[in-house]
């Protein structure tokens, strides 16, 4: 098979099947990312508030939200009066 530079992924696609786990992981992340970003479009939210709306364990919300902060989709907002929980907002 002739391999064109810049399109070598097609070569490996022919030789190797992408695992179902990797496909499911991508699908799940895309869903969670879309939901979190849609919710944050409406207002700034804390992890507690996001957890209630997403119906997910809090530690998973922390993981996905912090990953979205890391990759520049979300930014940290203000901390509450008790200096315990931050709110998070969309990065503009």
């Amino acid at each position, binding site marked *: 098979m002739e391999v064109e530079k810049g399109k*070598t992924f097609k070569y*490996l696609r022919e030789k190797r099947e992408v695992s179902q786990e990797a496909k499911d992981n991508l699908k799940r992340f895309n869903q969670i990312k879309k939901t979190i970003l849609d919710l944050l479009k409406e207002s700034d939210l804390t992890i507690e508030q996001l957890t209630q709306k997403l119906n997910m364990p809090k530690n998973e919300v922390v*993981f996905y939200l912090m990953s979205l902060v890391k990759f520049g989709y979300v930014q940290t907002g203000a901390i509450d009066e008790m200096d315990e929980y931050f709110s998070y907002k969309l990065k503009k």
Partner: protein
Amino acid sequence: MQGQIEEASYDVLVIGGGIAGGEAALNLANNGFKVLIIEKDLSIGGKMILLSKVFPTLDCSACITTPKVSEISRHPAITIFTGSEVQKIIKKDYNSFEVEVLKNPRYVIEEECTGCQLCEQACPVIVKDEYQFNLVGRKAAFIPFTIASPKVAAIDIENCTLCGACEKACPPKCIDFTQEKEEYRIKIKSIIIATGFKLFDPLMMPRYGFGLYKNIITSMQMERQLAPTRPFNTILRPGDGKVPCKVAYVLCTGSRDATIGNPICSQICCMYSIKQAQLLMGALPMADVTIYYLNIRSFGKGFEEFYEQAKGMGVNFVKGKIGKISELENGNLMLRYEDINENKVKEAEHDIVVLSVGVIANQDTAALFPDEQLKLDSFNFINQPDPLATPARTSIDGVFVAGTASGPMDIPDSILSAGSASSEAMSYLIQKK
């Protein structure tokens, strides 16, 4: 796997590119020897490059490691294979070894990657970032961490969906999914084992609840939270994102405990916990930090003063053995412990618990010598037959040990040990000429 086996020769093979392996390689290369470093990870620098600060000086760890790593990477007499593993070492004659090395594909042409991270931005996949000890995500096309050396992208092929987004985004077109595993057969005159240590897995102590209760973390997870390239914007509980106020450290997790098979002291946990406690008090000025200990072993230069400094800053030291940790409804943790000084069983509530995990021997190296016996000591570290006169010598002539592969030690001792290993290897090479 590619059909051909590439052949090469070097004076010294250094297995492991951490601080000990790197130091030994630099010493040898600066004295005119040709060195090959084999590193299983995607970057050299070992565990030290991931630390926040070092004790007892509180110097920035990255500021010490980065110039050293850069010097190793750019040295003309040092060749580095990252993402590679030694498969087998055969002693051929009185002064040579034949080493089989497997180089795993990175799916990126190292020489052409500029480290621009555009592939990372384009990649849609997110998985747990092992370099942040799973606290946050990374992409499947990724640069391991900001100060990685080489600062070159890699593709995590197990999690990649082969969508091609990274390849489309890459300006120099250096992503190459045609790469395969490569085999090397290398002739070597001497070997330095610098494979370091493994961290104790606290899942082996279910009574502490690690893994079950999300606000119990390991000391390496706290170390990452304290580092400048930290996963969160500040110190947070991974269970619910709360800024912790009451922090507990549980010393000797996986050390000095015969019940889990490691009866020896890890030598670093007391001091790194005291260091983290001091850094935490800087990061969270209102925090209340308690260290639960059996004995504080502050044996090194400046260690006792460092311990006294922590006490002076307000770190609370409790001589107590933890029986059980349980979780409360609000995510806080209840520590049930024996107060050794008062001879009473007590309970204390904390926001977050940090398990100061110990040092475990990395036993993988012994299996690399099918025809020779690389002897281990009773704790499975590499045996030193004559630790006083020739501390780097092992049971195999021409094979030396550096750093924590021979036993628990801190960073200065690892560097000293690497100096000893490189000196003994040089002496061996000169004698065998």
